């Protein structure tokens, strides 16, 4: 019962968080500076998502095969590999390093 309540509560909260922007801002003209800030939310958040996933709380999740895998992704990207192929290169590099170490 507790579990179901928690699931329902998280669903309602998540819905509300996403709905808040449109409910509050629709029909309102945003100030001119907001466009530039909004444009830079994407790189700031993406960088943080990577950092959080790679480091973990108090940096306890750092695994060097993951870092090597991400390096492989960058190399594949620079060699103009399409997105999925670049991701697969990272997966393969990480799996290989974990297998041999």
């Amino acid at each position, binding site marked *: 019962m*507790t*579990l179901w309540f*928690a*699931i329902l509560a*998280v669903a309602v909260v*998540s*819905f509300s*968080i*996403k*709905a*808040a*922007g*449109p*409910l509050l*801002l*629709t*029909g309102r*003209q*945003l100030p001119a*500076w907001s*466009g*530039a*800030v*909004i*444009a*830079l*939310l*994407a*790189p*700031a*958040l*993406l*960088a*943080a*998502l*990577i*950092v*959080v*996933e790679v480091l*973990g*709380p108090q*940096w306890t999740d750092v695994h060097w*095969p*993951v870092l090597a*895998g*991400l390096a492989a*992704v*960058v190399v594949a990207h620079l060699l103009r590999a399409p*997105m*999925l192929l*670049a*991701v697969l290169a*990272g*997966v393969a*590099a*990480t*799996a*290989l390093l*974990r*297998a041999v170490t």
Partner: protein
Amino acid sequence: MRPPEPDVPVEDARQRFRAGLRIGIGLAAASFVLAVTFGATARTEGWGVLAPVVCSVLVFSGSAQFALATALAGGGGVAPAVASAALINGRFLPMGMAVTASLKGSRWRRALEAQSVVDASWVAAHLGGGRFDRERLIGATIVQWPAWVAGTAVGVLLAPPPDLVERLGLDVVFPAFFLLLLLGEVRASRRAVAAAGIGAVTSAGLLWVVPTGIALLGATVGALIGLFRPKISDDGSRP
């Protein structure tokens, strides 16, 4: 300034929706894998079969669902668990605000359309300069949702060993996608590079003192670089 309801030709809108679907397929594959691990984790923690799947249908957010499972397993009670999931999803507040002007219809319809805001779709729909492609956003998300739910069901039913994902290197999938999306974003301008740098350093530092959700939310200070006027013709739009 973009008008609130852009008048786009139907054909063009359909093409952009299809472009979103194409992007979404790759992301859906990644979501599926992550969902399998969520299903398996939740099953191990005694959620049963139905609850994890319902959770994926209703919440549809990997980070929040893992936060919920972790916090509930920690035994701190329901309120802190719900709060930690809410904090993790706090980033969707500025992200939802950002897309509002690019969505269509009344505020309630836009609130509903804004449910399609998930990390990768939101970035894929970013046109630069703070404008978003509504059709691409919805298209990219609409294929990820069933994949997320199906993956959870598979994870619950098969319950693969927890270390399988790591052994196969699949824990790289999500950071890899985010990294590729970031590489695309930072090409737009030097300010994007600065925003990413500040976001990364801020979140890395915050991870030592606050929960993950607050670290993510705190990283948005990087976007405040936008308050400073660019010195050169560096307006944040893509080439």
